[in-house]
């Protein structure tokens, strides 16, 4: 017997039985069942489907939970619709305004439950990746704004300001510091590529204005951006922990 092969003990049997028993939960609710599956959304909640009988068939739906997950992380209805349609089409799941669903006869119920659950998980996975990119940036913007307010005062600093670029697109920047003869845009930039690409486009649009503001990108740690940091080139780049004096110089 090799050292790796051991006898299956009662402890293993018990641990595995408990884990398996915990993989799927089901709860009856009025005329339907809620089934919690071993697929976990980014936030730790379980992908859950609802099964109810409709005539001779069974309707399996996500009960609107996918949209609610998206709504909860600030995703617009339009973005949700775009992502949800492309994912659901590939798996053969239908979409109504609020829910994902399929209707099947009993022999297909197992697969239908899996399909609706997979669709829901894939949609939320794609949307949450986008939301996390913003979260990183939002957190940095928060500390940046507090720093700028401390350095320049609330009469000069406008947090979450809107600025129109040369293309007439409107950008919401982390903050603008206004001086008598010029203004300086400070933009928090997260390490996620989406955050970098967005800032890059914004900076180029603002730099093309006739009276372009000074541009400052603030990052947590320049190393985390890798070679993409070059995309921020129209702007000066500060790290979050730089001294007050460096922030003053960048704004001036």
């Amino acid at each position: 017997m090799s050292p790796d092969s051991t006898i299956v003990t009662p402890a293993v049997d018990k641990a595995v039985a408990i884990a398996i028993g915990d993989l799927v939960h089901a709860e009856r609710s009025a005329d339907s069942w809620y089934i919690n599956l071993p697929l976990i959304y980014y936030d730790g909640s379980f992908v859950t489907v609802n099964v109810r009988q409709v005539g001779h068939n069974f309707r399996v739906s996500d009960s609107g939970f996918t949209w609610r997950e998206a709504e909860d992380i600030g995703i617009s209805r339009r973005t949700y619709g775009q992502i949800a349609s492309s994912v659901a089409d590939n798996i053969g799941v239908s979409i109504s305004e609020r829910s994902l669903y399929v209707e099947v006869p009993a022999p297909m119920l197992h697969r239908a439950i899996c399909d609706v659950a997979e669709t829901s998980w894939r949609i939320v996975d794609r949307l949450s990746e986008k939301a996390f990119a913003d979260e990183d940036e939002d957190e940095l913007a928060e500390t940046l704004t507090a720093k700028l307010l401390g350095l320049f005062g609330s009469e000069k600093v406008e947090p979450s300001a809107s600025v129109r670029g040369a293309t007439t697109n409107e950008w919401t920047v982390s903050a603008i510091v206004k001086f008598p003869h010029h203004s300086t845009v400070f933009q928090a930039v997260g390490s996620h590529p989406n955050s970098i690409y967005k800032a890059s486009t914004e900076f180029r649009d603002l730099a093309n204005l006739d009276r372009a503001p000074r541009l400052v990108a603030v990052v947590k740690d320049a190393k985390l951006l890798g070679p993409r940091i070059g995309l921020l080139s129209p702007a000066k780049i500060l790290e979050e922990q730089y001294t007050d004096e460096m922030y003053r110089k960048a704004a001036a």
Partner: protein
Amino acid sequence: MPLRRLVDAAKLIAVPPVVWTPPEADGLTRFQTILSIDGVVEAGLTLSGVAYAREPDRHVTIELAVELVNGRRRTRLMRLDWRSLKGGHSNSRWKCSGAIAGVRVPATHLHSFDANWDDQRQWMKRGKLPCAEPVNENLLTFEDVRTFVGTSFRINNIDLVPKPPWEYNLFNVTGQHDSNPSG
């Protein structure tokens, strides 16, 4: 105000009454109300709740959150999920620490501030309060939930939150929760 102070301070619902919205097409109803600390309304500090009209006596979420100066997004501070139809919560093995790391907690659970605070970054952990702990108290009714939230979230006039506009019928009064027919 530092996030921990917002959680630790005694708070009051600043502008009663608290009203649940008319149920949407899927039955979802919610409330949101602003809070005060030491008699001053704290900008952006909110208590909110979500329930489903057609799912009485379960699937209630109550959350404390704040919108900060630059907040395009709420920063969540604490949340209670009561008898969630999504079957509890699975804690990440690496985002959560201590006894709750990598375990599944029941359908009633608390996403506490401490479990979701990242000491290194001095901010909340990424995600929607990713770590939850079981609730030891037996919360049988909405009134029990409200009292628990008042104590945990330190909101002294929590009784101003009314019961959700639940629609009872012959089928949805089950009294059975957290069942697992697979055993």
